């Protein structure tokens, strides 16, 4: 009999062929994502319509509060509701993916305790789920943009870059929280709180121009340490055109921060993943 593989299990050594294993398990990755997607709207009356309804309702409320009550001004030549919706679309991509990644190990604890596969499959399947939800809300944006007769310019071709950056940011922060969530259930309490803060800190319901106007204030640099800020600005710029505020210089530092965090979080995840089962 010819043996397909030889495995050595040793203390403190991760599996040697980890990345190969991950590739071999790509079908599992896909099927776990499919499970999460198809389970979500089972036994609901309006089903997948929720994916559209939620960002739509948030937009309506935000537009009412910021535009009608607070009387904030958007960028010149851009319908305010469209700007808010674009911001919400990219923010939801990040926030939903980040939240799901953070819980991905815990909600699959029955798999973690009973089978082996590269544990990165679980957060990665959350990334796929987040991305598919995003496609649905992007469709909503397209419909509303047609309503406002505001077609995108050439920048639209750069849209995938910002989508990718947003997913990488979600992964890099999410992995750290996912690992910590296994040991400390505090994380579960912390995440909705962080997401809520992020919603106001990031330029979603207001234009980045308002921040830029304060460039000599002490918190200006700190504000841009948040890599999401320039991702959101960039995404809005891609959809809304030249009129939208976007300072590309901030994007470089954002990319650097994301790359660094991603490296650290993957290292941390790989180091801890073999002990998940002992703490879950």
């Amino acid at each position, binding site marked *: *009999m010819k*043996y*397909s*593989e*030889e*495995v*050595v*299990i*040793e*203390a*403190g*050594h991760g*599996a040697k062929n980890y990345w190969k294993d991950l590739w071999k*398990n790509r*079908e*599992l990755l896909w*099927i*776990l994502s499919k*499970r999460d997607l*198809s*389970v979500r709207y*089972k*036994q609901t009356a309006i089903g997948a319509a929720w994916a559209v309804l939620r960002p739509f309702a948030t937009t309506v409320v935000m537009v009412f509060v910021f535009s009608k009550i607070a009387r904030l001004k958007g960028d010149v030549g851009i319908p305010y509701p469209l700007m808010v919706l674009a911001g919400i679309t990219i923010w939801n991509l990040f926030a939903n993916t980040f939240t799901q990644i953070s819980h991905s190990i815990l909600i*699959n604890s*029955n*798999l*973690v*305790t*009973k*089978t*082996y*596969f590269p544990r990165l499959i679980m957060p990665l399947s959350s990334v796929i789920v987040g991305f598919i939800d995003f496609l649905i809300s992007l469709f909503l944006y397209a419909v509303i943009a047609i309503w406002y007769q505001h077609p995108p310019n050439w920048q639209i071709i750069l849209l995938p870059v910002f989508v990718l950056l947003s997913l990488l940011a979600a992964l890099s922060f999410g992995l750290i929280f996912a690992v910590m969530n296994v*040991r*400390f*259930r*505090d994380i579960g309490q912390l995440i909705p709180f962080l997401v809520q803060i992020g919603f106001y800190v990031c330029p979603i319901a207001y234009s980045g121009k308002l921040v830029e106007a304060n460039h000599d204030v002490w918190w200006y640099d700190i504000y841009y340490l948040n890599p999401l800020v320039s991702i959101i600005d960039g995404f809005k710029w891609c959809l809304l055109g030249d009129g939208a505020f976007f300072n590309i210089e901030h994007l470089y530092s954002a990319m650097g921060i994301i790359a660094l965090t991603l490296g650290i979080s993957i290292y941390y995840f790989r180091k801890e993943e*073999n*002990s998940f*089962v*002992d*703490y879950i």
Partner: protein
Amino acid sequence: MQVIVAEDISKKYIIDHQKAMRKSSTLRDTFSEKFKHFFGKGEQDEIEKEEFWALRDVNFTVEQGDRVGIVGHNGAGKSTLLKILSKITEPSAGKVTIKGRVASLLEVGTGFHPELTGRENIYLNGAILGMKKHEIKAAFDSIIDFAGVEKFLDTPVKRYSSGMYVRLGFAISAHLSPEILIIDEVLAVGDADFQKKCLGKMRDVSESGRTILFVSHNLAAVQSLCNRAFYFEHGQLKMQGDTTHVVNNYLSHVAKTNLEHYWETPEQGPGNDQVRFRTVRIDPDFQEGKNYIDVRTSVKVHIEFWNMLERADLNLSLHLYAFTGECIFNVGTTSQSFEKGLVTATLEIPGNFLNDGSYVISIMVVKDTSTVLFQLPEALSFEVEDHREGVTWYGKWPGYVRPQLNFQINQSEVLV
């Protein structure tokens, strides 16, 4: 050829005594501990940490085609071993080398999602167990046929009966084609008919030259399926070798028996000023090569007591209780007149009469067939182990007794 080589594997868990009540520690605890240490405090209320070795220095090899049964008490380290072999958890020390594709079945229907239909769950569970999509497709009809759930394929599994659920789960895993199969107690579930199917399937697997590791408390199944056995105790591999030998050894350690009491003088023996017991004892007539009582073994109950009464009409009454408290039978000797002195009685409980299980004997001394002089409530206890021949079913045999009665079956007519 050796397909599994385990060298000195150990697994250590740390148990926090202070936090024993909590399921998981909180961030605050961790920070406050760090804080206390930083300031040199916390010496007194240091968390009491205890090391617990779930496995300690375990060495073994498994040859290709071996069917290894793993036996031992709960908490002996069997499941930890399986988890290490299936890469679910890593050992604290030591090394295992495995040659070949491993599939482990630590649970039936791992990852089944209650909201998904039977069909969707077949693909989900198959993928979790490491099957490729085309493999699942190829086996699909055979899986639903084996599980017998054709009608409910598009029903969410939350609406399944527990039997259907288990059948579907096992059916999927039965269609895995690993070189090494690791199984934990899956036979504990399902009805008799289904268990028979499972064992048949496992036999097929082993006959095709694949290696099986099988943890079970069902010793009859282990003996029938496995050619080798490991006996674990307190995280150590206490014994390995030929199945019958290892299982015998295990059983003779397990049996919670109380086979003999002897009191040298009447003053020591239990009783009163009328009667006092001297000996109560069970003498099993073991089967050849066995040193435990199984369903075939006949046992003799010996009783000796001092009669302190002048010329009394006495008889003994013996109750046999199941472990759960039900009385299986009550037998009495004839009443006879005895002088002061020792009285001896023997009762033979034949083999092929009691079912497997735990039993307790109580003994009464009765005067004039009506007055109880003294009762020894839990005089003796013993266990009867299972044994089966010529059957391929290993579920719990029902009933308190398992007599061999004359039960004839004949072909009375042949249809042409």
